[in-house]
C-alpha cells in the first residue's frame, strides 16, 4: 500500500501539494490507515499516555540496551534512521489527508495547472492500484510501479496505455525479491530472440505463459489443504492479512475447501474496519477483474463473502474482546486479522495465546524475515507455514514488457542493472537511477502549438524565397489547456491593420518608392482574369526588378540580393501603415 505514509506528509505545516489517487486506492487506503490508528491506539492504551513526544525506549541509553540485530533495524547502519522515526498519525490526520486527495477513475484525465494531464491506468496488482501517465507539452512520462499480469481480483494490468512514451520510470522494486528461479528463464528468452520478430516475441513472453498463474493457484491450493489438515487435527489456523487480493482469494478458497470437506468451522475476520471493507468491496464492480465483473452481469454478489456472511459461515468482529469469539475458541477455527508484521493488532494476542498449541497453524505471507518476526513469541510450538505470492512484474517479464512499451528513454533502478541487459538495438536510451540523485532526461526542443485552421489559411505571408521560408506576423493570445497550447488569434487587430486584405495600397507604395528614389511603374491586370496577380510593378532605376503583388503574397524578382531586401523593406513599411 503506497498510500499509508501520506498523512505523515499532509499533516506537516505548509504542505499544500495536489494529491491524486484512484478512488479505490484512496478508500482502501483510508480503511487500512484507520485500522492502523485503531491498533496503535490499543498499544497506547496499554502503555499509558505518552508524556513526551517520543516513547521511553527511544532515549539514547535505552536504545543501547536493544539487541544489536534490532538496533540496526531501528537506527539504520549509521544510526541516522532514528531521527526519521515519527509518531503515527491520528484519526484526524487520516481524515484530513483523505479529504485532500483528488480521486480519479482509471483513464480519467486530471489536468494539473493546465499544463499537465495526469491519468491512472490499472496495474493489476490490487483493486485500485495503478501506473501513471503524465502528459505535458514537452512529452509524455510513464511511471510504472509494481504491476501484475496475474490478477484474479483487480482490473487487468493495462500496459497498452503505457506504450510509446518519451520517458518511462521503472519503479517495480518487487523484482529484487523474486530473483530465485530466473537464471534459466533469462536464457530461454535469449534463445527466443532470433526466431521471432521482436514484437510478437515480447507478446509471447507477456501472455503466452500461464505457468505463473497456475503456480499461484497451486500455492493457494496447498495453503487450503494445510488448513483443512490442521482443522482435522483439532487445531486452529491463523492468517495475518497482508495483500488484500490474496486475503480475499484465501477467504474464498478456504471456505470452499471447508464446504467440500463437510466440516463446520467458523471463520473469523477480526479488524476494526473489516465490516466496512467487505461491504465496500461489493460495490466496486468497475474496479474488478473480468471474471468478477461477470458476476455483476449475472446478478450475483461480486464476492462470495456476501453470501458467507448471510449464511453466518464467516463472522466479522471489530476487535478481539468478543464473547462470540472466546465462547467457541476451544474448538477449531480460522482467523484472518492484521497485522502482518506480528507487532500490532489482534494477531499479537492470538499468537501469545496459541503459540504453545502444537496443533495450530500460522500462515505467514510475504514475510521477509520470519525468524525475526516470530522472536517475541518464542518458545513456540505451533506450526508455521510461509508463502510468497507474486507482488510485481517478475524479473522474467521485465524485458519483454519494456520492449513492448518502447519508451524513448528508460529510467531503470541502478540496483537491477546486473539482473537485466538492455540491448541497444531495442532500447534507444537507458538511464540508471539511484536514490537521492537526480537524473536528467533530455526532451525535444520546442512545443507543439495549435492554430485555428481557418485564419491560418488567410495569413499574410512574407516570402523569403532565398531562405525558402515565409513569414507571417500575428497577434493573439496563448492559451494552455489540457496540456496543449493553443493560439487564439486577435481578429479585430487583424482587420484594423488591414492584414486580411493583403494587397498593399498602391498609391502609398509608389509614393514610398519615389521617396526612396526608386523609379517604379505599375502594370495593371484585369481583376476578374484567371491570373492570381492583381498587379505587377516594374522598377527601372536605380535597380531593375519586378514585383508581383498577389492576394496571398508578393514576389520580388531581381538580379541582386540587396535589391530585394530594399524593396521588401519599402513594401513592408507600407503594409505596416507607417
Amino acid at each position, binding site marked *: 500500500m503506497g498510500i499509508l505514509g501520506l498523512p505523515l506528509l499532509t499533516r506537516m505545516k505548509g504542505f499544500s501539494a495536489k494529491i491524486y489517487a484512484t478512488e479505490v486506492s484512496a478508500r482502501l487506503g483510508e480503511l487500512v490507515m484507520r485500522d492502523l490508528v485503531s491498533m496503535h491506539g490499543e498499544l497506547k492504551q496499554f502503555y499509558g499516555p505518552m508524556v513526551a513526544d517520543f516513547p521511553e525506549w527511544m532515549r539514547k541509553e535505552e536504545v543501547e540496551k536493544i539487541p544489536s540485530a534490532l538496533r540496526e533495524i531501528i537506527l539504520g547502519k549509521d544510526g541516522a534512521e532514528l531521527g526519521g522515526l515519527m509518531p503515527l498519525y491520528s484519526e484526524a490526520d487520516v481524515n484530513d489527508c483523505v479529504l485532500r486527495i483528488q480521486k*480519479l*477513475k*482509471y*483513464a*480519467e*484525465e486530471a489536468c494539473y495547472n493546465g499544463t499537465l494531464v495526469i*491519468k491512472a491506468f490499472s496495474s493489476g496488482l490490487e483493486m485500485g492500484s495503478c501506473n501513471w501517465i503524465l502528459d505535458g*507539452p514537452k512529452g509524455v512520462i510513464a511511471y510504472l510501479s509494481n504491476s501484475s499480469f496475474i490478477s484474479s481480483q483487480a482490473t487487468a494490468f493495462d500496459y497498452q496505455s503505457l506504450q510509446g512514451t518519451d520517458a518511462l520510470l521503472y519503479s517495480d522494486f518487487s523484482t529484487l525479491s523474486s530473483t530465485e528461479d530466473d537464471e534459466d528463464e533469462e536464457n530461454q528468452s535469449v534463445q527466443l530472440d532470433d526466431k521471432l520478430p521482436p514484437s510478437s516475441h515480447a507478446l509471447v513472453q507477456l501472455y503466452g505463459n500461464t505457468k505463473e498463474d497456475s503456480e499461484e493457484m497451486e500455492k493457494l491450493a496447498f495453503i487450503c489443504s494445510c488448513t483443512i489438515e490442521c482443522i482435522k487435527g483439532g487445531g486452529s489456523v491463523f492468517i495475518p492479512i497482508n495483500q488484500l487480493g490474496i486475503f480475499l482469494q484465501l477467504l474464498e478458497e478456504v471456505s470452499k475447501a471447508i464446504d467440500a470437506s463437510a466440516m463446520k468451522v467458523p471463520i473469523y475476520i477480526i479488524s476494526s474496519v473489516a*465490516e*466496512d471493507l467487505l*461491504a*465496500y468491496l*461489493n*460495490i*466496486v*464492480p*468497475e474496479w474488478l477483474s473480468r471474471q468478477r*465483473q461477470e458476476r*455483476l*452481469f449475472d*446478478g*450475483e*454478489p*461480486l464476492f462470495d463473502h456476501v453470501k458467507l456472511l448471510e449464511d453466518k459461515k464467516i463472522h466479522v468482529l471489530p476487535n478481539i474482546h468478543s464473547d462470540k469469539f472466546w465462547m467457541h475458541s476451544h474448538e477449531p477455527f480460522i482467523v484472518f486479522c492484521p497485522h502482518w508484521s506480528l507487532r500490532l493488532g489482534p494477531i499479537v494476542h492470538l499468537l501469545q495465546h496459541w503459540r504453545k498449541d502444537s496443533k495450530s497453524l500460522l500462515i505467514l505471507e510475504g514475510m521477509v524475515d520470519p525468524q525475526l518476526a516470530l522472536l517475541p513469541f518464542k518458545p513456540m510450538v505451533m506450526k508455521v507455514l510461509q508463502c510468497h505470492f507474486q507482488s510485481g512484474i517478475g524479473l522474467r517479464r521485465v524485458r519483454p514488457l519494456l520492449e513492448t512499451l518502447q519508451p524513448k528513454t528508460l529510467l531503470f533502478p541502478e540496483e537491477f542493472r546486473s539482473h537485466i541487459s538492455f540491448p541497444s538495438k531495442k532500447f534507444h536510451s537507458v538511464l540508471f537511477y539511484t536514490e537521492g540523485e537526480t537524473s536528467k532526461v533530455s526532451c525535444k*526542443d*520546442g*512545443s*507543439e*502549438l*495549435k*492554430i*485555428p*485552421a*481557418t485564419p*491560418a489559411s488567410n*495569413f499574410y*505571408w512574407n516570402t*523569403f524565397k*532565398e*531562405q*525558402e*521560408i*515565409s*513569414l*507571417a*506576423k*500575428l*497577434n*493573439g*493570445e*496563448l492559451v494552455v*489547456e489540457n496540456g496543449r*497550447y*493553443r*493560439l487564439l488569434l*486577435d481578429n*479585430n*487587430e487583424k482587420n*484594423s*491593420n488591414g492584414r486580411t486584405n493583403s494587397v498593399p495600397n498602391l498609391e502609398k507604395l509608389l509614393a514610398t518608392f519615389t521617396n526612396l528614389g526608386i523609379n517604379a511603374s505599375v502594370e495593371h491586370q484585369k481583376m476578374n482574369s484567371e491570373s492570381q496577380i492583381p498587379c505587377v510593378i516594374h522598377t527601372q532605376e536605380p535597380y531593375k526588378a519586378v514585383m508581383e503583388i498577389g492576394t496571398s503574397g508578393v514576389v520580388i524578382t531581381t538580379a541582386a540580393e540587396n535589391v530585394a531586401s530594399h524593396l521588401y523593406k519599402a513594401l513592408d513599411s507600407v503594409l505596416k501603415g507607417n
Partner: protein
Amino acid sequence: MAIETLILGAGQEVGKSCVVVNINGKRIMFDCGMHMGVLDHRRYPNFSLISPTGDFDSVLSCIIITHFHLDHLGALVYFTEVCGFRGPIYMTYPTKALAPLMLEDYRRVMSERRGEEEQFNSDHIAECMKKVIAVDLRQTIQVDGDLQIRAYYAGHVLGAAMFHAKVGDSEMVYTGDYNMTPDRHLGAAQINRLQLDLLITESTYGTTIRDSKYAREKEFLDAVHKCVSAGGKVLIPTFGLGRAQELCILLDDYWERMNLKVPIYFSAGLTKQANVYYKMLINWTSQRIKDSYPTHNAFDFKNVCKYERSVLDAPGPCVLFASPGMISGGLSLEVFKRWAPFENTLVALPGYCLPGTVGNILMSKPPKIELDPNTQIDVRCQVHQLAFSPHTDSKGIMDLIKFLSPKHVVLVHGEKPKMVSLKEKIQTTMGIPCYHPANNETVSVPSTGYVKAQASDAFMERCLKPNFKLHKCSSEELSIKTLSDKNIVPELQVINEKAALVIVEDKSKKLKVVHSDEVLVLLGEKKTED
C-alpha cells in the same frame, strides 16, 4: 471539416432514440431505441439510411447506449443480431447489467402476451451483450486511434450517461435523457466544461419549468397516506426498474418517519432481481444513499413485504407496485380491473402514458373505461398523477447549454412545438445556432480544425514568463495596443518553412512559431547554408 448528424429516431418525437453522427469520417451511433407506441416496422430506426447495402461494420465505428430504457436500447439486439452489426458497443456498467433484464422482459411481453412473432430470442440478447464494453464515468476510452469517448453522469435512471466524443479537434456531446436536479435515489447530471462544436440534447420538457420537487413528492405521499389511512389500496402501475426503486425509497423513508405499518408489495420478480443490481451499483446513486452505505443499503427496503397473489383480495390497506406501467396489460391491468370500482382505491400514475393505453385514458378521469366490446370497467377510484419526472425541465436544458456553450445545438427527443419554442429561446438568448431535425433528416455543422505548429522554446518562455511591464495589460499582452513598445512585448511570428527543395509538395510544409528576436537568426542561418 464538418459534423454530420443523421436523425434516425426521436426527431421531433419521443421514442426510438437513434442518432448517427459523422465526425471527421468517424461514424458513431448514439442510442439504438425502439418506439413503444408503434407495432409495425416503424418501431425500429430506418437502419438502411446508414448503409443501403446492409454492411454496417465498415461505416459505423461504434454504438453508444446512454441508458437502459427501451426507447434508447430496444432496437440494439435487432441491429446486432438480425442486421449483423459486429462493431463495439459502449454503455456504462449499470446499463450493461440492467439492459438484458429490460430486453428479456420486452421480448417476453411481445412474444407471450401479444403472441407476436419474435424479433429476437434470449440467445440473441446474450450474444448481443457479449459485444458490449462497459465503461465507467469520466474514463477516456480510445475506441480507435482517432476516436475518443467519455461518459458523464446524467441522473435520469441508474447508469444513465451523457457521452462526449472527440475526433481530432472536433468534439461533441450527446446527452441522452438527463436530469439537472438530484432526486431521491440519483444525483444531478455532471459534466466538465468542454470545447464543443455540437451538443445534441433531449428536450422532453423543453417548455416546462418545474417548481420544487419536494412539494410534488409531498403531494404524492399525502395522497397515498390519505388513501391507506382510510383503509384503501394503492396501485402504482410501473415497470420494475428505475421508477419503482425511486418511489419505493420515497415510500420506505416516509413509512419509517410516520411509523406506518401498511404493507408495500412488489409484484414482479424483476424488481427483486433489480434490487440486487442496485445494491452493487450504489456508487451510481445519489450522494445521500452513498453516504448511508454501508450502515444501511437504501435498496434493502424495510417495509416491503413478500408478494403473493392472495394479497390482491386480502382485506385492509396496502400499496402495490405492479408492472407493466401505463396499465397496458399484465398484472397492472388485472389489478386495475379488480380495484378500480372502489372509491377508496388510489391509482398513482408515475410517468408518461402513451395514447391508447388505459393509463392514458385514466388521466381524463372517465366514469367508465371500455377495454373491449365485452368488458367495461366502472372507474370510481381516485387517480393521482405524479408531477415529478426524471427528465430535466427547460431551465435545466438552458443551464446545460449555457454551461457548455457549444457552437451548435441539435434538439431531439421532444414534441415538435416544444422544440420550436425552445430553439427560438436558445437562439435569441444565447445566440447559438440550433436545429430540430425530423426523423431521417441530416444536419451538418462546421467543426473546428487546427493546424499544428512547432513553437520554439524561446517563444514559449517569453509567452509563459511575461515581462512584468506587461502585467497591466494582463492576458492581452499580445494585443495591438501595446505594439508601440515593441521591445517589451513578445510578438508572434509564424514562419512557414518550406522544405529545402522547392519541388517538394505543399504537404510537407511545416509550421514553426518563433519569437520575433529569433527571426533574424533564422534568416541568417538559412543564408549561410546557401
